[in-house]
């Protein structure tokens, strides 16, 4: 089937897994009428009804706790955290319980919970509705962190998450959803009708190149690909890597590419300090230092909240042009 954006692909994956596994229930704010606002649960209510697709009160802490308790009894809740920015209101149940109960219980209580949340700015929603924050989850042991950038991956990674006995958080970028009320920077593509899995911990090389490696996830993959096209015109061959999952992380692919090109730019829509860019940089320098021709560079949100006004927002979220300029300087 032809699918535009990741939202429909995620919803399609959930629907097919719900048909296969009646232990899967969908919970969260507005998951029925609005399909979790960003479309990740669109059509599920019509198909499965209120018994399995359930609107909760606006109580992040409590519905995250509900999913912890339900998972302990054998269900597989799919929980919508509408915007990742709202995680503060529910984080205790996520990081102290959902992420730790398996370990703390000595392996007695797996926590098969799939949390789906919307990330990213670029459309003027300001500081409390535009963050990315996946590094917070990646920092805490116990979560698998999934960031699809294409419809094919979105479906395959979601199917994988729904068959995983661990808590998996899927971060869907709003500008990749394909919804009519948002700008779209993603892709429309033909994907298999039947369910399939995309492995966790396997990065995708979206474009092969020999002069520089550009590493990103989600929206930044698409912007990096556009920047790579611009670089091509300057005679620079850029390799673009889509990590797909931050936990588990495909270190091998990153190291291999860094060794090949000797130049690395890491692009991130999350905050700069103590985040994903620092982590990847460390991993590369620890295993490929001798192969690096120049120091590793990074582009990320420069440790400010995402501002509202258009020029301000564009100044902090890495743009195609910013990636292009930064990459060019490295070569």
């Amino acid at each position, binding site marked *: 089937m032809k699918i535009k954006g990741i939202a429909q692909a995620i919803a399609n994956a959930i629907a097919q897994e719900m048909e296969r596994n009646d232990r899967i229930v969908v919970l969260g704010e507005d998951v029925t009428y609005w399909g979790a606002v960003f479309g990740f649960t669109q059509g599920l209510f019509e198909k499965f009804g209120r018994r399995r697709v359930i609107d909760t009160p606006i109580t992040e802490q409590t519905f995250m706790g509900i999913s*912890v*308790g339900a998972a*302990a*009894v054998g269900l597989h809740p799919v929980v919508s955290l509408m915007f990742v920015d709202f995680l503060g209101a529910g984080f205790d*149940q996520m990081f102290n*319980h959902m992420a730790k109960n398996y370990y703390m219980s*000595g*392996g007695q209580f797996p926590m098969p919970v799939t949390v789906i949340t919307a990330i990213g700015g670029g459309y003027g929603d300001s500081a409390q509705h535009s963050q990315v924050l996946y590094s917070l989850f990646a920092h805490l042991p116990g979560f698998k962190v999934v960031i699809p950038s294409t419809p094919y991956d979105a479906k395959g990674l979601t199917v994988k998450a729904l068959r995983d006995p661990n808590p998996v958080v899927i971060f869907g970028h709003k500008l990749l959803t394909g919804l009519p009320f948002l700008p779209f920077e993603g892709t429309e593509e033909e994907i298999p009708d039947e369910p399939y899995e995309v492995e966790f911990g396997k990065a995708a090389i979206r474009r092969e190149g020999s002069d520089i490696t550009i590493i990103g996830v989600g929206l930044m993959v698409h912007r990096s690909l556009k920047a790579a096209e611009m670089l091509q015109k300057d005679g620079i061959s850029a390799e673009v890597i889509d990590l797909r999952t931050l936990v588990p992380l495909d270190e091998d692919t990153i190291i291999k590419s860094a060794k090949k090109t000797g130049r690395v730019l890491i692009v991130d829509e999350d905050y700069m300090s103590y985040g994903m860019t620092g982590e990847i940089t460390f991993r590369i320098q620890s295993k490929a230092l001798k192969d690096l021709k120049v120091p590793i560079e990074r582009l990320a949100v420069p440790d400010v909240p995402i501002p509202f006004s258009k020029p301000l927002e564009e100044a902090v979220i890495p743009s195609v042009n910013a990636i292009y300029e930064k990459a060019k300087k490295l070569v």
Partner: protein
Amino acid sequence: MIIKPEPTLKDLQFILEENRIKASDLLEMYRRMVLSRYFEEEIKRIYNQDKNPFNMAVGLIRGEMHLSIGQEAIAVGTLYNARDEDVVISTHRPHHHAIAKGVDLKKLAAEIFGKVTGLCRGKGGHMHLFDKTKNFACSGIVGASFPQAAGAAFAFKYLGKDNVAFAFAGEGASNHGTFFETLNLASSWELPLVIVIEDNKYADSTPKSLTMATTFHYQQGLANNVLSYLVDGMDVVDVYITAKKAVEKARRGFGPTLIEALTYRYVGHFEGDTEEYRSKEEVEFWYTVDPIRRHENRLLKLGYADEDKLNKIKEEAKKEVSEAIKFAIESPLPDPNEAFVGVFA
């Protein structure tokens, strides 16, 4: 009103008859309370023996230690109504609930000692006890039990089972947002949930009166259309009878119940607590309504047991406790490599 007046023998007989409580039930409740008391007294002794000057990091038992001595009647009275498959989510003060739910005493002790033979292979410790076989779990985070028990109740309802989930919490925890959120949600969804608030008067060192605008938590339950009771938490019979109503209602699909049980912890919030926030007289008063001694007197008064029989139960409980402690002490510590495995299933 702090505690209910002691019923006359005739009233007591009537209450027992009306609720079909047999002598064997009362004796079993007695045994579980005694087991919990002895277990914790022994834990207290061993915990403190190597900690002079006080240092949480040293000794056979490390970390914080929150004991429930004085609160046994609530755990036993409530969970005497529970089946193995029913879920219990307890708190940072979890031992009495675990014992009342029937968690293996040896494994429980071994976990508290951080041994590989413990419930969680030494990864949980005293505040994070998990037992899949008894569907028992707890959390060291205040207010965390409410939504998790509601989630288990949701799962039971979804799966068409007549099981019940129990959330235990202290009166301090019920100032947490999760309490109100869960009352509202469990009431809206008619979940088979029993919430038990153990009001032992102090949230750590802070008296309830300083932090709560209403006097009783059952008022907060009623505000959310949750059937709510206030019980004498020092009376195992009062707790049992009320919990029985709540559990039967939940099993039949008629939704959640809140039980507020007035009680007292004879020991500090944690071991090492100097307890200057409460008077000696106050503590002494509450010893006059000790749930175990009170129950013991009733058993004697009713003629369900004589001194010999009670002594025998006590001796057996002591023996069980010392065997559990012995098992814990003699068990090996985990291999350090164990720390690095088991993050993901």
